[in-house]
């Protein structure tokens, strides 16, 4: 209803309205294990104030949260616990890997540290830094809102190639092209199947040359 009592028409589809609502009420579950957890607290507290992005309702129960904020080193001992927390979250759910440790193991390439949480679960956004400054985390949340608004598909639970990981770490626009393919254009599976098998093509061409 508008102010004068006449019924207002919203030029929206319901699907878009749902996405819009989801985007602006992300309930994060902070999984802060180490240094990044402290910076995450800074982000949530007075100076940076994550409430501006509708993501201040911190839920410590995975059942009530839709954004898993993994901030800090995940060790091999912690891995199964984190996976269980992720499994307990209801769909739709998103994951942000905050900091170098949870993205790739960071400076801890050791016998007890998981080399990136993408070994055990899909990750939507990687935030570089050790630890990332609060602005970095806020930027990541804004990017996530963007992907939710556009309704882009989530990445698969597959480990990224080094090339993709490098792009993800540098906030380049490539990130949306390579990982979050626009569903309208081409799906991720199709792009893999469509690309011609390079070996057979090569052998055919050499063969024809020999013939000629």
């Amino acid at each position: 209803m508008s102010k004068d009592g006449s019924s207002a028409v919203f030029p929206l589809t319901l699907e878009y309205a749902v996405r819009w609502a989801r985007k602006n009420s992300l309930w994060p579950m902070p999984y802060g294990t180490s240094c990044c957890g402290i910076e995450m607290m800074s982000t949530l507290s007075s100076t940076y104030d994550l409430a501006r992005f509708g993501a201040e309702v911190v839920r410590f129960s995975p059942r009530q949260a839709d954004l898993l904020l993994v901030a800090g080193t995940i060790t091999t001992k912690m891995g199964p616990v984190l996976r269980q927390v992720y499994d307990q979250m209801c769909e739709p759910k998103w994951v942000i890997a905050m900091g170098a440790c949870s993205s790739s193991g960071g400076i801890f390439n050791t016998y007890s540290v998981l080399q990136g949480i993408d070994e055990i679960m899909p990750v939507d956004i990687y935030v570089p830094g050790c630890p990332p400054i609060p602005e970095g985390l806020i930027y990541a949340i804004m990017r996530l809102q963007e992907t939710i608004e556009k309704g882009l598909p989530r990445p698969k639970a597959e480990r990224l190639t080094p090339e993709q990981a490098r792009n993800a770490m540098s906030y380049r626009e490539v990130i949306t092209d390579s990982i979050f393919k626009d569903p309208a254009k081409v799906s991720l599976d199709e792009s893999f199947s469509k690309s011609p098998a390079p070996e057979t093509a090569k052998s055919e061409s050499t063969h024809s040359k020999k013939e000629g």
Partner: protein
Amino acid sequence: METLLKNNLVTPLQDYYNPNVLLNLGPSHPAMHGTLRVMCRVNGETIEDASCEIGYLHRAIEKLAEHKTYHQWIVYTDRLNYCSALANNVGYVMAVEDVMGITITERCMYIRMICLELARVIDHIICVAINALDMGAMTVFWMLYTWREQAYTIIEGMCGMRLTTSYARIGGMAYDLPENFQAEMKTFMEGLPKTLDDVEKLLSANRIWVDRTKDVGILTAEECLGFGLTGPVARASGVDQDLRRDRPYYNYSDLDWDVVVATKGDVYDRYLVRMEEMRQSLKILKQLCAKLPGGSIWTEDSRVLIPKKKDVYEKMEVLIHHFKIFMEGIDVPPGESYRAIEAPNGELGYYVVSRGGPKAWRIKIKSPSLALFQSYEHSIKGAKIPDAIAILGSLNIIAGELDR
């Protein structure tokens, strides 16, 4: 019914009235700070027995010390107690300097003392704020965090990073203090006491706070000695020990300050000790800023001296020297040293064993948090479940330091 019982198909009724219920807290529990885990055997609300599990943040920092050069390992000290990284840096370089026999300059010493005290203030801020937050006092958290952000701004000016500082170097500091340092410190030192007053007004006589913290988690002086507790927790129990006064390093004996000691050893006393220690640290900081001498921040010892960038570009020998320090690492003679500082949480010690060469043979970190968490298992027996949360917050256990 009897046949059912015989075949274990139903449990006898009395088993349902077992008072020994096991309750798991953590590792992913908001009050367990992310990585701690306690299994409690509860009878009603009372914890009768508890067992702690650690190692959820074991990152092999000590093993890395054997694989990295002495300078490379400074970054790992940041991630031990990430709430007070400045103090960890200083403690580590002190131990290595002892093995090498290096004397640092006066200005470097003062900057390091400023680091130690600034780290203490921000660490206590986080401890009090989180302890209050765990018990629902959100305002205190926001008020104190404003000043932590202010301190971060100062630290960022000093070394370029907010949390993981890597500020100290063996034989000197990475950078000199920035130009606006004194002015920013002045605002910090004048502003924080006002907030501390406000926090004390909010908490110290607050009925809920007092009810939840007084007589909770009492540790006696004997228990502190047995569990090897140090720092504010031990001082709250009446153990009058402070390495800054007992075994003064740097210039602490020339400054005017007091060791804060309480008597009872409960959560409330630990809170009071931390609040007063912040004021004492600010007092030390004020004196240090007033006395700050000029001169170089680097020792003249050529084994560790990192040359100036200008010389590196212009002089051949300096370039080679620079290359050697960064590519091979500094050569530390065989020897060993145990150097402990009064870190915000208690005695933080680095035991460096060198067998020559650029990498340490073994570095053992004596972390105050390990002793604190071990005593936690003991002190929550007989307490209620909400008390266990209050006690954990007051001990200020940092998982990075606990598991290393």
